[in-house]
């Protein structure tokens, strides 16, 4: 009997300690989860609810009648929505693939040891750190129709015969937006890929070189396969950002000329805060959430199956 007492007591103490630990954990996690519930999940649910109603702040007397999926059905007929979707898809596809290729080149160039490497890496952070609004105004000035340095350089190189209004023409405005976006975000891609490159053990290359493999072969056989997870993660981050793009076209072109550079985020924003149409605006906004989640699930599935295969 006597030997059992301390053991039972110890068990109770341990159980008490475990319970205290769980209580403490709940307490520590609570503020973060509360903030997320209040500022992220509640608005999202509220968005879904609004998207099933008609609500226009300009006509408060009309109230908020329930309209079911009518707002979503209206999307199909809405040419401005399809235009915004096309613009967003074009910006995402072109700028993310350009960033991947340029970012890979930059990462490979920096990966090689040379003097001043730290400085070059630091220079990559300049576009990344710059406020997007500032970036937008900077490129607006560079592409200025009358005084812009872009026009001056192209004229000097005889690539154009006279100055052009790059941001005011429907054909070129979206390419100005894409160019500015690539400038701003390619360095981030390069840094992520560089970090991935540095995780590849150098012995792999040495072994393959002794076997007589050339640089090109090394890249396709060793670098690219081993870099696959880093590439996918970088693509995930960048694709999500590109689909949500707002600041840059909003300040650089205002979505114009006409609707030539209007993205989904800008269209939703204008519907909400210019037209004050909170019902349809919520539909556009919630649609964006769905689109972003589809992209995320797509990448996470690929990443997940990669990891599973590796195991």
């Amino acid at each position, binding site marked *: 009997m006597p030997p059992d007492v301390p053991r039972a007591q110890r068990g109770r103490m341990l159980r008490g300690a475990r319970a205290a630990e769980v209580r403490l954990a709940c307490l520590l996690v609570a503020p973060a989860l509360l903030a997320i519930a209040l500022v992220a999940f509640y608005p999202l649910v*509220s968005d879904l609810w609004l998207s099933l109603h008609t609500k226009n702040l300009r006509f408060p007397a009309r109230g908020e009648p329930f309209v079911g999926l009518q707002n979503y059905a209206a999307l199909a007929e809405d040419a401005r929505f399809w235009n915004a979707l096309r613009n967003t898809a074009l910006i995402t596809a072109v700028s993310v693939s350009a960033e991947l290729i340029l970012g890979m*080149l930059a990462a490979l160039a920096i990966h090689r040891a040379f003097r001043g490497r730290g400085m070059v890496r630091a220079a990559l952070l300049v576009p990344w750190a710059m406020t997007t609004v500032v970036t937008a105004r*900077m490129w607006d000035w560079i592409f200025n129709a009358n005084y812009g340095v872009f026009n001056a350089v192209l004229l000097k190189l005889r690539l154009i015969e006279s100055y052009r209004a790059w941001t005011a023409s429907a054909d070129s405005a979206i390419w100005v937006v894409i160019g500015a976006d690539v400038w701003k975000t390619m360095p981030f891609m390069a840094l992520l890929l560089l970090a991935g490159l540095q995780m590849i053990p150098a012995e792999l290359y*040495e072994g393959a070189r002794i076997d007589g493999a050339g640089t090109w072969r090394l890249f396709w056989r060793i670098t690219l396969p081993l870099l696959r997870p880093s590439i996918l993660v970088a693509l995930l981050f960048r694709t999500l950002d590109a689909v949500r793009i707002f*600041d840059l076209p909003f300040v650089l072109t205002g979505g114009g000329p006409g609707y030539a550079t209007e993205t989904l985020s800008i269209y*939703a924003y204008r519907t909400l805060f210019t037209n004050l149409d909170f019902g349809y605006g919520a539909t556009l906004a919630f649609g964006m959430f769905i689109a972003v989640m589809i992209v995320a699930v797509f990448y996470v599935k690929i990443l997940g199956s990669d990891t599973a295969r590796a195991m």
Partner: protein
Amino acid sequence: MATARLPLEHSAAPAAGRRLRPRRGAPIRLWSGIVHLLLIALLLAFCLAPFVWLLETSLKTPDDLYSIPPKLLPVPVDVRNYVTIWQGRPFLQNVFNSAAVASAATAVSLLIGALCAYALARLRFHGKSLILGTVLAVSMFPGIAIVSPLYLFFSRLELINSKTALVLPYVTFTLPLCVWLLTAFFRDLPPDLEEAALVDGATPLGAFRNVIVPLAAPGVFTAAILIFIFAWNEFLFARTFMNSAESYTVPPAISMFEGTGTFVIPWGQITAASAVVTVPLIVLVLLFQRRIISGLTAGAIKG
């Protein structure tokens, strides 16, 4: 920190590998050296030239600013733009607003995020991966999807034009980064230290404050820089929840920076104001580049 130092040792190894075949490789090496140098020069020009042009523009006289073709260098240097940006508009107030909002968001996000990260890294309880997943999911939310309900919510509470309306969403949207970074950081710290503190009779919170926090200072600092930069640069919420010129933070202020009384867009002043809000950021980034890069990439690689 270990991840940050590792690459430097690796980088020398391929160079050693190349030396295995000296003769036949020599001309190729020369060519690849030249190509490499060109690539690096191009990369530097790509990253820095637009910003240098912005700085130059801000230092030009009005005549030079609107000369065709543009003058390559700002001679004579004219600093008048840096004086006029503060006159006739609340730009100083805008800078102050940004500094206040970004500092508050950084402090609150770190506090809440560190507590959550400590629980996730050290305490035993169920549902950890669910919590981490939820936190991470927030980083994928499109801002536009939540901005209008938040606007209605803040209107009802009469928080429009108050800094709280910005601090709350900034804290929430930086929590994923903060929790993710700090959880990884706390996990890397040896548990023996706080166990020793617990054996000595310290409470878990006491062990956290006196043992973990000082050791995790580098990680906390990295998170702080990244959170501050996010808050300093944010535009969508700032434009929506602030609707008077006095309450703007820097991004909406710069986006609506117009001349006082003229029809011409004052590019000299816009570029000067841009430089004023960008140069401190760049100094910060250059000073702490190692930390920032390891912070940016750690999440990506471990995630």
